[in-house]
Each structure stands twice: as C-alpha cells, then as structure tokens.
C-alpha cells in the first residue's frame, strides 16, 4: 500500500539520490564559503592573515587592511549577483522551455543597461532607486519583446528563433546605447566600465539598494518552482492539469526579470552565468525545479565568485572584468549545447 502511493508521487526518488542531493547541496555551500575566503584573501595586493582578521574586525590602519575591507563588499556582490543570474537563467529556461535561454543571450541585460543609460543621459537620473527601477523596466520590456518575436510562427519559441531574436535585439540595443552615450563625455567613462560587467566597484550602499528587489525576486522564483515543473510537461498537458499558462509564465518571468534587472543595475550586463549553471545543475539534481532553482542560485554564486577571483589572479597587476571571464567560459558551453542538440530541434 505504501509502495503504491510512493509510485504515484511524481518526483519521488530513491533515498540514495535524495541523500546525494543533500550532500551536493552541502558541498556547494562549503565551496561557496571557501571561495568567499579565497576572494577576500586573494587580489592584486598580497595581504597577511593578520591583516585579514584585523580588517574583518573593522580595523583600517594599514593598506592591506584597507584592501581587504574593499574586497568584502565585492565578494558579497559577486555572491548575490551570481546567485540572482543563475536563478534567473534557470527560470528563463523553464518558462521558455528552451535550453539556450539566458538573460545575456536573450538581450535582457543589455535592455536593462540601455534603460539605465537613457535615464542617466536624458532624464538626469540621480536618485539611486531610480537606477534599479529603470533597469528592471528595461529588462522587462526587452524580455517581452524578444520572447514575442521568438515565439511567432510555427513551432513556438524554438532555440534558434529565440537566440536570433535575442542576438538581433542585443545588437540593436547596444547600437542605441552607444548612440546615447557617445556625445556625452561626462557619463561615457562611467558607462564604459559598467558595460563590460564587473563587481569591482562594489559598495555596501549599492548592495543595500538592490537587495530588497533581489529578495522579492528570489521569493517569487522559489514559489514558482512547482509551476515550472508543470510547465515542463508541455503546454497541452499543463493546461489539462488546470495550470493557467499565461499567469504561470508571467509570474515566474517577472521574478526572473526582477533578478536580472537589479543585478544589471548593480554590476552591468554579465552574460552566460544563467546559461551554464542550470545545465550543470540538471546533471546534478535532475529536472525537478524545486531542487534545480536553489542549486542554480548557489552554483551561480560559486561560478561568479570563482570568475571574479580568477580575473584578479590571471591579469595581475590589473584585473580582468568578470563579464569577460564568464563570456570565455560561457561561449564554448553555448556551442557545446548547440552541438549536442539534434538538428531537427534547432
């Protein structure tokens, strides 16, 4: 009798897999802590352990301690941004049922950055909150636009159509961004460093600013995990099970847009994290979004933090922006996914 109810539960898995999931979750957390320590300890300037522990207690007397104090908000931002991007990528892949969905590839990050640039240049935006709102607005408009174009015609939003619509929109939007920025030398410098995508200039203020948005996004996303599971069955089956498709897609998508809009406002457009992470996590925990979403968030944080640390090590004494590193890891991964697909699916 018990065995029978067991088989009726859709996502029941044998105990050893359940154990494996918890173990991997633990491993990811441990890895994250280790990377955080690494991120605080490693940088252009070599610091001693005494300086690190002194700086962590709030002392700011030596240069080394000041350097460490700078690295703490940076580490925090990398963790938050990476988590948000990983989560947003997993949701977008679930909502579009498309293996190539990613806030960077779909042009959503570029849309957010164009909105911020326009706000800066034309409306003299100065209130910090306005940044975040405009970025989220830009991200939302772009996401809806790209998804609409990509899903026109036969077959819905196939990977090719969606990726092309995203690539075309990205090019158009970056052209417009350049057109807005170029005549204005006063904002050009700031926009340039921001546009490569990095966490180097992190401050506690910026983190505080985006944190509420990210928390709301996180809550919406985690709550929509069940809906994403049902959407994954296909539109017909999901509708047959009583799911309101538009509502489900809308809420989950809104969560993802909040996440990547706020992240872009804080760090600039960072691509490919949202693409890589969910695929790797699927290998680890399977397709159940209730597991996939938290795993994606954790792995995203790990990936971005690792990319940031690597960027600080490989290009000493200067730094390699984290956006460049993720593009270099992400593009080959993207190609691997494309090659793995059967031609007919593309």
């Amino acid at each position, binding site marked *: 009798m018990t065995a029978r109810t067991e088989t009726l539960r859709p996502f029941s898995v044998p105990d050893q897999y359940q154990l494996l999931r918890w173990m991997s979750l633990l491993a990811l957390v441990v890895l994250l802590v280790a990377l955080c320590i690494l991120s605080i300890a490693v940088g252009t300037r070599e610091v001693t352990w005494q300086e690190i522990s002194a700086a962590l207690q709030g002392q700011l007397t030596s240069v080394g301690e000041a350097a460490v104090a700078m690295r703490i908000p940076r580490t925090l931002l990398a963790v938050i941004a990476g988590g948000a991007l990983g989560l947003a990528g997993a949701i977008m892949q679930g909502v579009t049922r498309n293996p190539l969905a990613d806030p960077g*590839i779909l042009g959503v990050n570029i849309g957010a950055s164009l909105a911020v640039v326009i706000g800066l240049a034309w409306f003299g935006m100065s209130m910090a909150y306005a940044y975040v709102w405009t970025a989220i607005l830009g991200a939302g408009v772009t996401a809806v636009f790209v998804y609409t174009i990509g899903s026109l*015609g036969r077959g819905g939003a196939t990977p090719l159509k969606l990726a*092309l619509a995203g690539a*075309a929109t990205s090019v158009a939007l970056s052209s417009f961004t*350049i*057109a807005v920025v*170029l005549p204005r030398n006063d904002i050009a410098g700031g926009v340039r460093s921001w546009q490569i995508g990095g966490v180097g200039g992190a401050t506690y203020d910026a983190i505080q600013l985006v944190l509420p948005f990210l928390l709301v996004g996180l809550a919406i996303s985690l709550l929509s995990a069940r809906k994403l599971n049902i959407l994954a069955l296909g539109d017909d089956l999901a509708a047959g099970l009583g799911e309101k498709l538009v509502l489900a897609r809308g809420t989950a998508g809104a969560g993802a847009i909040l996440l990547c809009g706020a992240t872009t406002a804080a760090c600039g457009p960072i691509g490919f994290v949202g693409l890589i992470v969910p695929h790797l996590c699927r290998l680890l925990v399977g397709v159940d979004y209730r597991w996939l979403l938290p795993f994606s968030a954790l792995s995203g944080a790990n990936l971005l933090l690792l990319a940031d640390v690597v960027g600080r090590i490989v290009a000493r004494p200067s730094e390699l922006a984290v956006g460049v590193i993720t593009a270099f890891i992400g593009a*080959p991964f993207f190609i691997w996914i494309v090659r793995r697909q059967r*031609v007919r699916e593309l």
Partner: protein
Amino acid sequence: MSTGQISIFDRVIQGRQRRTRVWLGILAALVVILVTGMAITLMLGQSFTPPQDVLRVLMGENVPGASFTVEHLRLPRAVLSVLVGMSFGLGGVAFQVMLRNPLASPDIIGVSSGASAAAVFAIVVLQLDGAAVSVFSVVAGLGVALLVYGLSHKNGVAGTRLILIGIGISAMIESSIAYILSRAPAWDLQEAMRWLTGSVNAAQLDQAWPVLVSLLLFGGVLLSRGRDLDTLRMGDDAAAALGVRVTLTRVMVMVCAVSMIAIATAVTGPIAFVSFLSGPIAARIVGPNGSILIPSALIGACLVLIGDYIGQFLLPSRYPVGVITGALGAPYLIYLIISVNRRGGSL
C-alpha cells in the same frame, strides 16, 4: 509547329535580353546614386565647397580654402567608405549565397569581429601597423570562419547550427575586444568605437591602397566565380549536376570573401551589418534579373557612404558610421526574423 518553336526561342531570348537590360538599368541607377553620394560628401560638409573647386582639387590643383578640406578630410573618407563598403557588400553576399542563408553573413557569424579582434591585438598589444595588421586580420578571419564551419560540422553542416555557433563565437570575441581595449594604455573612445562598431573617422588616403588591391584581386576572383556561385543558390546537388565543382568553389569563395572583409576590417573596423544588409537589399532590387554580386557591392558602398554622412552631419551629434548602420541593420534583422516566422518557414 516549327513557327511555334521559333517563337518560344524568341520569347526566351527576348526575356533574357529584357532581364539583362533591367539588370544593367539597376546597375546604372546604383552607380548614379553612389556617384551623387560621393559628390555630395565632397562638396557639402561643415562648409560648402563649389563643384568647380572640388574638381580642381581632384585634378591636383591647389585651391586656397578648399584643398585641405577636400583633399585631406573629405576625399579619404569618401574613397575609404566606398572601398570598404564594396568589400563588405561583396564578401557578405558571397557568404550568404554560399551558405544559402541571409543570416550566415560574416558579421553575424563572428568572422568580422574575429578580424577586428586580431587587428586590435596587433595594434594595441604588438604595436604593429600597416600591412602586418591586415595579415593578422586575414589570418584571424580565416581562422574564425574555419572554426565556426568546423564546429557546426556534424552529419553535415546545418545552417541553423552554424549561425548559433557563430553567435556564440562572436560573443566571446567581442568580450575579448572589450578586454584588450580596456588594457590599452591610452583609452580613446573613438578608437574603441572603431573596433567595436566600425568607423571611418581616422581615414587617410594611403589606407585605401590595401583595400583597393584586395577588392580588385579577391573581388575579381569572386566575380569570376559568380556564375558558379549563383548556381550554388540552387543547392549543392543541383549545382554539382550542372557542372559546378562545389567544394573547390566553396573554398575559393570562403578564402576570397574572408580576406576581403578582413582587410577592410583592419582599416575601419567591422562596420556593423553592412555585410548582412547588402545582399538581401540587392536580392530584393534585382529580383530574378541577374547576378546580385555587383549590385551588393554597390549597395554596400552606398550604405557606408550615406551612413557616414548621416552620422556626421544629419544628426544632432556626430556618430561613427557603424552606429548608424547598426541602428538600421538590427531592426531589419528583427523584421527578417518576424517575416520568416510569420510565413511559417524555418530560417
């Protein structure tokens, strides 16, 4: 019976002659537009130079007040615009025809940005100039083309896979351009624009020579293969049946098109979407009336020339030509995707 046959032959011949006349007419119209465009760019900039003065400067006379403007500012720009525009237009359409897909143009699948990245690397990091930069660009362009082609080879090359892989590769290359530029000792926004979106701002007349030579050499080979290339539009099997050596044609076309584009890119950067736009515009204008290779080259030249003029003078502030062609081309790309999706076909 026999009269009927003769009249069919006559009709075929007449039709062919009519199409040739239409084709020549289109060619003439494009040349007229191009020459008018050049005349306007030479005469009208920040100040107006009368046509007779422009002519005298072009004849080599020294005209006070006009010589510097026309000879050193406007002429190099116009000449370079036309030459790189032709290179991009012809190279782009060769790719599109060869791969039978308007999206398979060098600026979408990463060949142009690869050439640009190599040029930036050669200039910023290795501090080379002149021909060495062109060599770097050509090698990198060919490398990227081979890489994209090779990676998309899996049970035959599928057009869609090639395009997606190209998009991935160009994302990687563009971020490396941004990185190299961010490490350049003297950061210059104009310079950065040139390598990211393309610009003729720093045009000098001696830069035009390599582009002209490559246009004549590689463009000549491409045009001599024009008939084969047009036959390839019918598909590999049909082309082979009609006596085209498919692989040979493909290799020659790829080498020539990439070299042309890379040499032009080494001078002006990858002017956004000129390669992508020229072919489809030419195909739409020419229709079934003949080859689209030469019309595409002319349209490419018009796009760069006119785009640069708009960017310089017709907008509230000055923009490099790549921003203008990018802003024009991306909506067209979106339109292309929408219209193909609407018709229900696959891209």
